């Protein structure tokens, strides 16, 4: 069952996107997720998507923390999901905290699709 991300994970997640605005190496995308954005969200760039994701959560939007149960993803204890509107489309975004240290976080966006 999804529950709101715990405070430390949420902070690490937000910090990754904040650092990612200035520095490379804090937010990465699986090619599958990047490809979905390019093929479905006309005119959008990953930079803009990252800003929208950050602003959604920083503005009080829900970041769900979901215990990982899928066989291929058991390397990660949790994944972190959000749902938001982009260009009139309601989308679902799945992310993982590759590095969960709030002082040195790394988020990967692993999947994006219509919610």
């Amino acid at each position, binding site marked *: 069952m999804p529950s709101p991300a715990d405070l430390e994970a949420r902070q690490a997640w937000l910090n990754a996107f904040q650092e*990612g605005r*200035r*520095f*490379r*190496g*804090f*937010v*990465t*995308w*699986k*090619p599958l997720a*990047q*490809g979905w954005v*390019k*093929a*479905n*969200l*006309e*005119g*959008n*760039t*990953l*930079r*803009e998507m*990252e*800003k929208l994701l950050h602003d959604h959560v920083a503005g009080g939007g829900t970041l769900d923390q979901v215990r990982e149960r899928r066989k291929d993803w058991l*390397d990660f204890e949790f994944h972190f999901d959000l749902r938001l509107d982009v260009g009139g489309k309601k989308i679902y975004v799945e992310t*993982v905290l*590759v*590095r969960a240290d709030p002082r040195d976080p*790394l988020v*990967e966006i*692993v999947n994006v699709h219509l919610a």
Partner: protein
Amino acid sequence: MKDSTEQDADRPFPWRCPHCRENEVYPAIVAHTAEVLFDGRRCELTVPDLAALRCRSCAELVFDARVDEQLNDVLRRQFRLLTPSQIRDAFAALDMPAGEIAADLGVAEAVLSKWAAGTLIQSRANDQLLRGYFASPAVRSALKTAVRDASFGTIAVLAAPATRG
């Protein structure tokens, strides 16, 4: 205004691989084909030498905003769109408040700012509008009239009225 690709510094390589978690992600040149939605249609972009990232341990391909920017550049070239730096240069040359330009063009100021920063890619129709606006005082004047006068443009005019000598 900074270009969207400008950053102060990067996390030093190697990065941790999101797939195998080894610290083995390095820059790598790869051939890549992307399907991109543009002007309501899906088109294919091929980049033979995309500067991406790859894990040397598990071969996982990793993308980020910098990689995406290269695809955006290819898209702009393929559709002959104004680049963000060309848009910024034109804004600087016009030396007009961004709000006034946005009002003339009928777009939100935030959207205009994102086109100039390269974080949103303008449609071809908006690109044509920008080009006309930048290139022609007559177009700028006409668009200002259109903002004020709802009847402007409701009747097609085939040629400019002759001036009396």
